């Protein structure tokens, strides 16, 4: 059975940073959506069963980060831990770059 052509701006699993709204600055993960309207979760404030709908222009994909796979999206706990771990790694990389600079 053919699938309706996907028009999602970013594929499921992509990690993004919110640029606007009360979650601005936080990392979120794309879990679905349609076109420019994306469904985002962080596993805590926005659990997988209640994703946040957000316009693609109000988020920015985190560059150089592989999309989350099925393991990370298997539950809210795993997703939240994955995002926290990634945030720590990004901050560490940033402070390394600042020290070297």
């Amino acid at each position, binding site marked *: *059975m*053919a*699938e309706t*052509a*996907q028009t999602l701006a970013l*594929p*499921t*699993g992509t990690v993004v940073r919110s640029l606007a709204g009360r979650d601005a600055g936080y990392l979120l993960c794309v879990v679905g959506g349609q076109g420019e309207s994306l469904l985002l979760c962080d596993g805590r404030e926005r659990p997988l069963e209640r994703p946040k709908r957000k316009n693609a222009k109000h988020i920015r994909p985190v560059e150089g980060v592989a999309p989350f*796979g099925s393991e990370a999206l298997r539950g809210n706990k795993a997703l939240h831990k994955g995002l926290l771990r990634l945030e720590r790694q990004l901050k560490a990389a940033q402070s390394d770059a600042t020290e070297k600079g």
Partner: protein
Amino acid sequence: MISLKTARELSLMRDAGRIAAEALLRVGEAVKPGVTTAELNRIAHDYISHCGAAPTFLNYNGFPACACISVNDEVIHGIPSKKRVLREGDLVSVDLGATYRGYVGDTAASFAAGKLGETAQRLRETTRAALFAAIPKAVPDGRVGDIGAAVQSYCEARGYSLVRDFTGHGVGKELHEDPSIPNVGTAGHGLRLRAGMTIAIEPMVNAGKSGVRVLPDGWTVKTKDGTLSAHFEHTIAITPNGAVILTKAEG
């Protein structure tokens, strides 16, 4: 999310694929003038159930039957009906799925009710050949675009157009998994294919223009210009040794 299948999972998918392929074969043998599309659906349902599998499409997102049966200008997702009686020369596309021990086999083919006209016959052969032109592109380190490009170049060189609003897809525990497998594309572009992926390649080829519309029943997809359409599909496993067709009947 793309899931890579283990050898055990591939073996289960081969079983599901074989059941789906054999059901399709039986439905194909029954396609002839005077038969209703509901009767074809019953044949598919009985065979799949007889094998201890479940008809994947039944109730999938509310689809009310076990097989999609689309006639002439219907492209895909036709709902079988007691009122739809096949006539001599009808081009009948049958798409069905079997879920066996948690894994899905998804396959489709266009059949002739009686003797097809020359246009329909040529369209049917081209669509089938386009599928077999694309299957060898499903190899590790290939790209999704290689598959679409193979289908597109084969069909467009013969004056046909491809449906763009619907695509092939990943298949496994779910009927529709990532990635999407469009029937158009650019070779060398798109997602990189990996061993362990299982995908459904399914060219939907129109004799006229590529535009399609969905009927008010919410399912049946027809060509906008009323021209004929054909559809073939196989579930494929990408292995280190190349593409393996999982929806193959035994013998």
